[in-house]
């Protein structure tokens, strides 16, 4: 069956069209056009929406709402989103960043999806129309969500010093992840960690939290001794992927090293 592109002015119409067999949502194209180019014949219809909400960014009262079709380079350039720009810049080279979207990144299988790792640490909400789902829950169930359209993500823009992000890659500056780590820290004025959210990429087939390490950081100082218990349990619950970039063994071995460096940086 020949391919076709169907464009809809509203999200609802696009959503309805996605129910047809062979239909896939076209965001930036980095995943679905590639699939078609590489002979995925199950894909017969690209569905897209030109709904302006998909392309909008609003930051009000420290809370950002980013449309699902907003690209990584738009985020990286946005003056109110400087704190998360490093995570947006971690995705691909410049052309990919001009195309890859927030919505697409939520569905990218490991080793891709570095920006979703940042969103997970930021405790974002994933919006599908009026319905808001916490990102933890969304990611766990995302395979079932593949036939729906994410409209936006929403999260509190972190203070720059509270948010840390690192992508470890073999190839610089744009290689695919060995792993990525995003950390959101709440520290008291004396440096004691009050709360932490740590998200990991490539440590499972989708972004995941390092729950044990988060707990182990609470009440500790951000020193080598202070974070040691957290590093010791950083790998708890992980199931790192093995791929052409690195083995599960290697990822597990270097996770505490990179987490430690990120926390102390």
């Amino acid at each position, binding site marked *: *069956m*020949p*391919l076709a592109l169907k464009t809809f002015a509203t999200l609802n119409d696009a959503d309805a069209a996605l129910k047809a067999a062979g239909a896939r949502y076209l965001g930036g194209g980095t995943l679905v056009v590639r699939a078609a180019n*590489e*002979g995925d*014949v199950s894909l017969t219809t690209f569905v897209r929406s030109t709904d302006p909400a998909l392309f909008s960014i609003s930051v009000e009262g420290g809370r950002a709402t980013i449309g699902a079709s907003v690209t990584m380079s738009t985020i990286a350039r946005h003056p109110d989103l400087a704190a998360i720009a490093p995570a947006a810049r971690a995705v691909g080279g410049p052309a990919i960043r001009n195309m890859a979207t927030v919505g697409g990144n939520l569905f990218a299988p490991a080793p891709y999806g570095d920006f979703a790792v940042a969103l997970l640490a930021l405790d974002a909400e994933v919006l599908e129309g009026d319905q808001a789902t916490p990102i933890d829950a969304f990611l766990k169930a995302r395979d079932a969500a593949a036939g729906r359209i994410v409209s936006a993500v929403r999260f509190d823009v972190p203070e720059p010093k509270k948010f840390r992000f690192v992508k470890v890659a073999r190839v610089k500056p744009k290689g695919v992840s060995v792993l990525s780590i995003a950390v959101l820290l709440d520290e008291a004025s004396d440096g004691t960690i009050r709360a932490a959210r740590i998200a990991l990429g490539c440590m499972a087939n989708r972004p995941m939290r390092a729950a044990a390490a988060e707990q182990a950081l609470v009440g500790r100082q951000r020193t080598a001794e202070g974070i040691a218990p957290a590093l010791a349990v950083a790998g708890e619950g992980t199931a790192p992927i093995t791929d052409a970039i690195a083995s599960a063994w290697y990822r597990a071995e270097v996770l505490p090293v990179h987490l430690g460096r990120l926390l102390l940086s």
Partner: protein
Amino acid sequence: MELRKNYFADERKDDLHEIGQSRPRSDAPGHVTGKTAYFADRTFPGLLHLKMVRSPHHHARIKGIDTSEALKHPGVVRVLTAKDIPHNLYTILILIQVGPEDEYVLAEDKVRWKGEAVVAVVAETERAAQEAVDKVKVDYEVLPAVFDMEEALKPGAPLVNEFHPGNFYLYDSGDHRKVRFGDIEKGFAEADHVLEQTYASSPIEQAPTETTGCVVMPEGNDRFTCHTNTQAMFFTLDNTSIILQMPGHKLHMVGGTVGGGFGGKVDVIVEPIAILAARLTGRPVSFIYGRYEEMQISSPRAAEKIIIKDGVMKDGRIVARKVTGYTDAGAYSRHSPYGAQKGAAHYPGPYTVPNVWIDTYCVYTNRTPSSAMRGFGVTIADFALEVQMDKLARLIGMDPLEFRFVNAYRDGDMKAHRQPTTGAALIECMQEASRAANWPVAEKYLQMSSYKGG
């Protein structure tokens, strides 16, 4: 880059007009304007696209092929199987009498590696060809496969390729190419130290930015013009002539401007089947590898395993060097028997060693057939040799660079393959490296020369 003209100044003419001048490249204006025409930068009305059905198994018997659904698929013009190929069995170097023919253009009774071509689908669009590929049904009986070279050489190992009993290439010298020079056992007996080490590598892809491919145009006069990015026009023409049983004068290869080769485009893979498709359909046909095919289907540099055993004296002289090299050809020969033999000629490296014993094997396994790549037969050998040199130097407590000076070959030295050394320049390279890298060596090494007795 610096040209150091103080070395070998007496051997060089410097009264030339064009040679030695950095003239601008005549192809650069085309490159920077995007006007350079590569083989795929042409459009042909009515162009058909060829896609390949490939084996999902490493080793399997083909019990049946059903192409009926694919043939019925909208847009499909022709489906080709082994029986459509006039002379389906070939090997590239048969042209220089390196046989036997051991590879099928399209698989017949068996597949011997994951990715082997089984059925070719020719359709109006790439999309239709791809859809029809998915509709070809091949009934396989999976067979045991072997991936490790030493396992493959053991008795009772699965036989990869019926033309190579024992899973090795049979040279006129037996199951390996050999070089014998001096008395290796005497050398080891004399040595102060003996060191045996094993080195290995896994396959490497040439990875040109332009993938392998061709576009074939049937001319009105029963001739076929094939726009190709082959590295060797007549390898392609002559092998196609054999495979298609077509006189060479019916074939016209056009190429010569290629988006990188690195050895990856020396095989003759895409052209014969595309020309056949053009002949059978009477229409232009394009067969261009996707990036996945370039990475995993096209021949890589072979995996190698190299065992080096050296006898060395406390004063730094290597007195015996025994090398056993294994080249993983994958399932078919392509250029690998040549590469393994080139390795035999290369050892013991650029050093003068009085007692040498070399055995190089070309081994068949159920992996993607390997073939030529930049440094063919030598690159991995040099890795093994030069790491071994470092280990030997440290073993006897000598500076690694000085250790190489002690053993470096010079004009007139007899090589293991019994050619006297001529035109040597290893010593001068090392002298210059010592200076450039600020790696001090004793003055006597800086006074040495590659000239006879120097």
